[in-house]
């Protein structure tokens, strides 16, 4: 979030989204109003259900116990669900710390030879 232009952004986005909004009890909802990207929010019930199905199937395929999947889905906001649906394959999953030494040595050699320059990129 960038400070300062936040309000202008909200106004624009609110207006942009309002048109396609599901009339949740007739009003334009807050999650839509404050969404940062126009596609950040699942605006359609069917789309929402499909995204849910896709995420559920992927979680299960990744070994999450079926009895936990629905509770985990229910905890996700529209924006999070949408993000997971499109990006969960590449999103970071914090936890892995085991390094095969050899792999890392190769990386360092590549780096030192200048084939990669990840560490100096900024």
């Amino acid at each position: 979030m960038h400070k300062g232009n936040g309000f202008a952004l909200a106004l624009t986005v609110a207006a942009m989204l309002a048109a396609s909004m599901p009339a949740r009890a007739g009003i334009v909802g807050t999650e839509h109003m404050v969404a940062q990207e126009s596609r950040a929010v699942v605006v359609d019930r069917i789309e929402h259900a499909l995204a849910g199905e896709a995420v559920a199937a992927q979680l299960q395929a990744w070994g999450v116990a079926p009895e936990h999947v629905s509770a985990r889905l229910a905890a996700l906001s529209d924006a999070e669900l949408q993000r997971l649906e499109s990006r969960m394959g590449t999103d970071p999953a914090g936890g892995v710390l085991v390094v095969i030494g050899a792999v890392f040595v190769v990386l360092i050699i590549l780096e030192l030879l200048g084939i990669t320059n990840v560490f100096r990129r900024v």
Partner: protein
Amino acid sequence: MRCAMNTRTLMALVVLLGGCAAGPELQLLRESGSSVELADVAFFPQDQYQCGPAALATVLVSDGVDVTPQQLVSQVYVPDRRGSLQAEMLAATRTYGRVPYVLNKSLAPVLEALHAGHPVLLLQNLGLDRWPLWHYAVLVGYDANAQEFLLRSGTTHRQRSSARSLLASWDLAGRWSMVVVPAHAPPAGADVLGWLQAVAPFESTGNLATALEGYEAAVARWPESAVAWTALGNARYLQQSFPAAQIAYQNALVLVPELWVARNNLVRTMIAQGCAELAQAWVEDAVAPPAEMESTWRGTLVSLSEAPSEFCPPSTHRTMIDIR
């Protein structure tokens, strides 16, 4: 176990390779000249790949939630990814009635949060851009003079990490960090939109009471924010507290008359109360809506034309009403 050792080795290598990704941040740290250590923050050593549950338990417990990493495994751990996804870290936090606030991608709000007593959960990439090794750890302090950060990480209770290597690993992870706070207390350094975005999901996940608490806190902290007032109005509307919703929307429109969401929702609120005649004034008052809002607005006008009009006290609300 082997996790912790590898962490240290990797960080050392990152330093060796000259991780100079964070010059301005380092300077900020140096200039802050101060130090903090939240020594009371609990420590949960991680099992295997489960630094997600361990780190999340650390920040939840620190905010008074009674939970263990083992309980969080079924909520945030993804076995075949050997890790936890950020979206689920946020989602799980909400199931304990706490607001996960994602901090701005700079060091200043992180230091501010530590000074305010909040441990900061952060994502690190201990590998490379192309071959990432994602890890969650919890910042519990820093020492500006020593240029060091203090963490609960992996199996190390009090890990001291050079600022340079920690910032490099954080930078490679997109500078993602979050704090966990109760809904009535936006963290120091929060901005209004960030706070509303953090609170809004409570609505769609069925915890309206917590959302309401978060919006009340928002208008208390940012009374000049029309968007915050609108959000409060929405939650009150969903709770069917129509008169209170009406006041919130009107406050929003006093601040920003062209905030169409507020106007639309205000008219809806008046319709819901059977005050069509009163709503008419807010319709006549309006300039033409922006194109994107047209169909929503038309729908509202149709509802208005079909709505009953009972006697409602006239509303001449043109100044802010303090209802906090």
